[in-house]
């Protein structure tokens, strides 16, 4: 029997960075795998692809993918990616980052990038807490969940990320869990081909930190939770697509066409230049 030593997607990863730092049972590897699969299926030019990440466990993704990449500071990948996209609209700019990075310390950038409809793509791993620093309450922590800073249960209401993205003006919005690998891969393919600002939330297991405090100590138990309660409701009202222990609504919520910010700005520049010529 022939022994294959290299992973079929090895060319998409920086092998020198392996082994990765993610815990067993973590969903980040699945997300990266789906992303790489989508890039492969689309036969994307790796020289034109930029992966940007911020702080947190999945922030390491930028270092693992064998494309142009930048691991930027806490909360700033969207601001950074905005600069890249405006400087060189030819580049495909993808952010792979976490819920804490994108929606707490960097929350402001998200709503404005979506509002402007700048053509960057955001894939957010939502593990319900700040995993890398040891599991504190964050902007996606469910009510009553236990974390190191809410040892008797969280009293704050979490963001509904797909609702936030849709309300802020994103042209593509979807949510999947790491259980939905095929749908997630197809969704990422769609995301990468959209014009304007697109967003996918991936509900991801964090058994070592979040699960440990919330009676789901293994990746399998967390995946079992996703399996039991996930309901695919494509193009349902994202406002009603909340995440509770009893129900996780997944699917595509928004898929619309809207001219991107980078197109508008270059059109505007051309228009002004033309007028100047007439003067």
């Amino acid at each position: 029997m022939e022994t294959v030593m290299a992973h079929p997607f090895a060319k998409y990863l920086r092998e020198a960075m392996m082994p990765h730092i993610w815990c067993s049972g973590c969903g980040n590897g699945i997300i990266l795998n789906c992303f790489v699969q989508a890039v492969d299926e689309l036969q994307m030019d790796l020289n034109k692809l930029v992966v940007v990440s911020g702080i947190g466990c999945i922030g390491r993704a930028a270092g693992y993918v064998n494309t142009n990449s930048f691991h930027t500071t806490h909360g700033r990948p969207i601001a950074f990616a905005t600069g890249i996209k405006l400087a060189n609209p030819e580049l495909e700019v993808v952010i792979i980052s976490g819920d804490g990075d994108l929606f707490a310390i960097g929350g402001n950038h998200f709503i404005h990038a979506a509002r402007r409809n700048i053509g960057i793509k955001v894939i957010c791993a939502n593990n319900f807490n700040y995993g890398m620093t040891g599991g504190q309450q964050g902007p996606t922590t469910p009510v009553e969940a236990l974390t190191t800073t809410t040892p008797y249960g969280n009293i704050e209401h979490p963001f509904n990320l797909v609702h936030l993205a849709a309300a802020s003006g994103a042209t593509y919005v979807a949510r999947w869990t790491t259980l939905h690998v095929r749908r997630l891969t197809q969704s990422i393919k769609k995301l990468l081909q959209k014009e304007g600002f697109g967003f996918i939330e991936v509900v991801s297991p964090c058994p070592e930190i979040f699960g440990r405090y919330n009676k789901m100590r293994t990746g399998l138990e967390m995946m079992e939770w996703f399996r039991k309660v996930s309901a695919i409701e494509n193009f349902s009202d994202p406002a009603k697509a909340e995440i509770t222990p009893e129900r996780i609504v997944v699917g595509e919520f928004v898929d619309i066409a809207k001219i991107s910010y980078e197109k508008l700005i270059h059109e505007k520049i051309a228009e002004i230049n033309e007028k100047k010529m007439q003067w």
Partner: protein
Amino acid sequence: MAQTIIDTANHIAGYAAKAARVKVIAAYPITPQTTIVEKIAEFVENGEMDSEYIRVESEHSAMVACIGAAAAGVRTFTATSAHGLALMHEALHWASGSRLPIVMAVVNRAMGAPWSIWPDFSDSLSQRDTGWIQFYCADNQEVFDTIIQAYKLCEDERVYLPAMICLEGFILSHTYMPVKIPDQNEIDDFLPPYKAGWILDVNRPFSHSNLVSPEWYMEFRYMIQEAMENAKRLIQQIDKEYGKRFGFEYGGLVEKYKCEDADLILLTMGTMGSEAKIAVNNLRKEGLKVGSARIRVYRPFPVEEMRRLAEQAKMFATIDRHISFGMEGFLATEVKASLAGEKEPPLVAGFIAGLGGRDVTSETIVKIAKKSLKWMKIGKVEKETEWVDLRD
């Protein structure tokens, strides 16, 4: 009753916030600070601390929430590291400018890029000019004691400034050491409840921190400078009083060790000061007259203490866990500035060491001392700034 516990400096900082009866804590997690606020969250949630814990969405918000709480007249605490501190920068000026005695633990961590989670002083020293008092600790006991002392100092009406208590990440933050926690009644006696200099009060409404014209802005700055000078004197008094009551004293602004007859004095900050003491002992065994002076308070800077040390010593060696790019280590600059104009000042050699968490052991410091002694002998510093153990 006083008790001795064995715990990490981060948890000890949490115990100190509890002992100080802090009323509001606003914080955001960041390595290696996080376990401080986790400990406090635990104390608040289990009822051991009668405080409000605000889980904010960034360090910028953490500092601003502390400013709000302090302006409402309560004792506040927060903690951060590196990029978190940098994100607070704008608000740091507002805390000192508003004269609010906020105390913050800064668990020192090197600044990116490239990413590092290991310690150096580049984070807190970058905030040198924000009007915050800066303490640097050498062990876990000092972390506890300095937090208590800092509230006493900062809440004094002659000071009313915020303070950072700096402790190096991992070297202290995650290292277990025995620490004596004094009896709560005795702490309460030493540190009475906070009496605010000004307070936002619905019954006596007034506007604070409003636009000030050029006719008055400078005077507000001058008052902060005066408060810093007052702090210099008070830090020494408070340290002495604390020592008398609780048995731990740190030499006020500078912890001196075998400096009386020293030809060479090693100037350090933080845990390098502990290693320097071991180095001094080893060098003395060889008959070399070396002493150690650990700068415990970096702002206000102990200018007068530097001058006093200069009367005796022939040579100073500064060891900076920091570099001001394009110049030298801050400590080297400050020490030279302190000595400018003195008659026959000692030679000053600057050493850069331990950036991004590289170990600075007593052996490293012995090496630094021997090089400095060589230069002392020839009466000339051959290299103004030496990077210790730099790879080719």
